[in-house]
């Protein structure tokens, strides 16, 4: 098990610097807005002016994690993002199409996926391993796996997180592609400090993460994962899953209900996060917050089936589990 010594999220919920936020979540509505802090409190003004929404969210969350974990420099910075810096990508492509001659360099520089991890590194002066994972809805899980591998080698602390941002053109793309969505498209960033050793700051433990691409039998994979962790379904105090697509969500619901998990312990986190590729990072923060608020909770499984072809499984446990 590795230990989570800080967690910070900026989302459409009051998650930022608000321990116990899980008790005050509400279902997202069409008019829900991203709840942003005053970024000037966290980011130097000279850097802030060039940062898009996803960069501001990520750097603020990353810095808050360092502060909460009382760690000035992590050994590594690992980020997962499904769609990367969309705002700058759109801006760059927009000028590319409409302006003849020279193109503004800032939006091009800031449009790449690895700008997020890079800006965090620059903001805190970190020279360690810096990696970005982008594999659609499993980006965060792969960032977690990378982080856990680093901790199992010679790293003591890894700053890991995920972020994605909503831009208006996504609504048009969704309509043009006739994609039925069960909720609101949204933005979110969640970052965590993962540590090899338990400390006074430890909030919870992360025992296992696994991804299964092109999954064929979700129920068999969940059963195998739990067996490998010596956990029975009935030991799960909570299951978090994205209620995105009826077929896959139904399979997951059926499985846990048939395996002695009460329906009120199975929570659709998408209703709280809205839809973006790395919502499982929001789910992890939600799980950590719930563990911190209720000492009876020991084992929480995040079952990420946001894309029905890909399955991500993350087991989060209380420090006493």
């Amino acid at each position: 098990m590795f230990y989570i010594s800080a967690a910070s999220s900026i989302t459409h919920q009051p998650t930022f610097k608000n321990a116990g936020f899980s008790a005050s979540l509400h279902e997202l509505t069409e008019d829900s807005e991203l709840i942003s802090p005053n970024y000037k409190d966290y980011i130097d003004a000279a850097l802030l002016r060039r940062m898009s929404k996803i960069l501001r969210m990520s750097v603020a969350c990353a810095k808050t994690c360092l502060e909460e974990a009382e760690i000035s420099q992590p050994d590594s910075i690992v980020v997962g993002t499904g769609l990367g810096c969309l705002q700058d990508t759109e801006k760059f492509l927009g000028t590319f199409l409409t302006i003849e001659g020279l193109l503004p360099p800032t939006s091009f520089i800031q449009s790449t996926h690895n700008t997020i991890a890079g800006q965090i590194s620059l903001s805190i002066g970190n020279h360690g391993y810096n990696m970005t994972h982008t594999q659609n809805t499993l980006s965060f899980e792969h960032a977690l796996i990378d982080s856990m591998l680093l901790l199992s080698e010679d790293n003591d602390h890894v700053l890991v997180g995920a972020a994605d941002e909503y831009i208006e053109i996504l609504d048009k793309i969704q309509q043009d592609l006739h994609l039925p969505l069960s909720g609101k498209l949204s933005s979110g960033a969640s970052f965590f400090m993962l540590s090899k050793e338990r400390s006074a700051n430890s909030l919870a433990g992360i025992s296992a993460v696994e991804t299964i691409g092109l999954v064929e039998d979700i129920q068999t994979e969940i059963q195998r994962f739990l067996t490998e962790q010596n956990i029975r379904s009935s030991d799960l105090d909570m299951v978090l899953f994205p209620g995105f697509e009826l077929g896959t969500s139904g399979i997951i619901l059926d499985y846990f209900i048939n395996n002695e998990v009460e329906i009120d312990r199975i929570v659709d986190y998408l209703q709280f996060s809205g839809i973006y590729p790395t919502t499982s990072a929001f789910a992890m923060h939600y799980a950590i917050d719930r563990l911190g608020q209720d000492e009876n909770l020991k084992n929480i499984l995040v079952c990420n089936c946001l894309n029905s072809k890909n399955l991500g499984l993350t087991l989060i446990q209380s420090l006493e589990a």
Partner: protein
Amino acid sequence: MDQLKEDLKKQIIEQLNLEDIQVSEIADDALLFNDEGLGLDSIDALELIVLLEKFHGIQVTKPEEGKEAFMSINTMADYITRRKAEQAV
């Protein structure tokens, strides 16, 4: 000339996302790349080259000219005026 300087200040604020700076706060002779002036950096220099082409139709083809031209609002306005006069000939 004064109108050109005002326009330049507005264009710089927009192009460089200088969110907290007003036109009235930029002195004509303030050094753009000095911390006591606007504190711009090398990426801003590239943005200023784009700005000159986008708003004034001027291409900075000689790098040594840029160093002189981008010192302050005054030098930028002089550079634009001179280059436009050359283009008109």
